[in-house]
């Protein structure tokens, strides 16, 4: 059991390195926005280490700068981060049913788009130590990138930041493309998701909806449609 934990933890660290690099790059921009919001380096760094949410933090910082009430900030944070609720549901089916509460409480700390994406792509049951390994390197990447953003501002060449910021999308693609190759329904879903997401962002009528909310609406509608039209076989979920 102990070697199992160790193995998963180190696997997690390995999988977490590209996440760390991507996070570092993306959070520099977040740090710049924190500075613009009048936050200090410690405040921005602590916020990033704890909250680990790009859109959520960006919205939060913007509201803090505007002097919004605590309640407004919390409500907006809930809306921006509501997609994690779905991810948490999916993870509850991916872990062992006997997984103790303490592991569930710990795993919940680090449900981010990337850590979630990588952890659901594991074959079979998910070992929480895989997530801890990823979090151990990804969290410093996110927090230190934010710190760098506050301190350095725009010193880094724009081209470097631009190049690093697509790393996270590369990671997403490496997660949803291989299953799409094997499964036609998933392949079709990817195409539908791209098209719907593009349309949703292009139509001005939807401009008032936050990007986090758009992700939730599209995810729920498309996944539910697929579940009704193409229900999966009994054992497909465990794979």
């Amino acid at each position, binding site marked *: 059991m102990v070697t199992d934990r160790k193995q998963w933890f180190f696997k997690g660290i390995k999988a977490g390195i590209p996440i760390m690099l991507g996070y570092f790059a993306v959070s520099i921009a977040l740090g710049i926005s924190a500075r613009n919001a009048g936050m200090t380096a410690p405040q921005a760094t602590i916020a990033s280490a*704890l909250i680990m949410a790009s859109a*959520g933090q960006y919205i939060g910082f913007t509201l803090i700068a505007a002097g919004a009430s*605590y309640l407004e900030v919390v409500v907006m944070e809930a809306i921006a981060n509501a997609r994690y609720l779905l991810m948490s549901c999916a993870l509850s089916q991916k872990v062992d049913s006997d997984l103790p509460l303490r592991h569930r409480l710990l795993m919940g700390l680090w449900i981010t788009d990337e850590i979630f994406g990588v952890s659901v792509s594991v074959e079979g049951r998910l070992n929480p130590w895989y997530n801890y390994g990823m979090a151990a390197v990804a969290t410093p990447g996110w927090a230190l990138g934010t710190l760098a953003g506050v301190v350095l501002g725009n010193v880094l060449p724009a081209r470097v930041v631009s190049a690093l910021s697509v790393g996270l999308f590369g990671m997403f693609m490496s997660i949803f*493309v291989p299953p799409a190759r094997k499964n036609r329904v*998933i392949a079709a879903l990817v195409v539908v998701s791209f098209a*719907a997401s593009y349309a949703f962002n292009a139509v001005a009528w939807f401009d008032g909806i936050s990007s986090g909310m758009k*992700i939730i609406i*599209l995810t729920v509608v498309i996944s539910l449609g697929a*579940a009704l039209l193409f229900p999966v076989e009994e054992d497909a979920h465990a794979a």
Partner: protein
Amino acid sequence: MQHNVYLYILGMWLISYLIRVLPLTLIRRQITNRTIRSFLYYVPYVTLAVMTFPAILSATQSPVSGALALAAGLVLAWLGGSLFQVSVACCAVVFVAELAMRL
């Protein structure tokens, strides 16, 4: 009224944590309903696809370099590239493309 930034951060953290941890702690057994199981099976792929496009086009300095990274990532992932390879290749494509475009 003067707001305390650390209280804002605490509030943001607390609500985010509750959202992340509640389903994971409350749903303790395997769901047997076939529709819900299928829904949760499709969620990760759909949500990652939705987050990738068209966001990747506006993440870079030019939509062209973003589109090239998208194409490179899709092809490489299709051919079986690892998470790390696909991720680094996308970064490299953007760097070279923007160098060529003198951005």
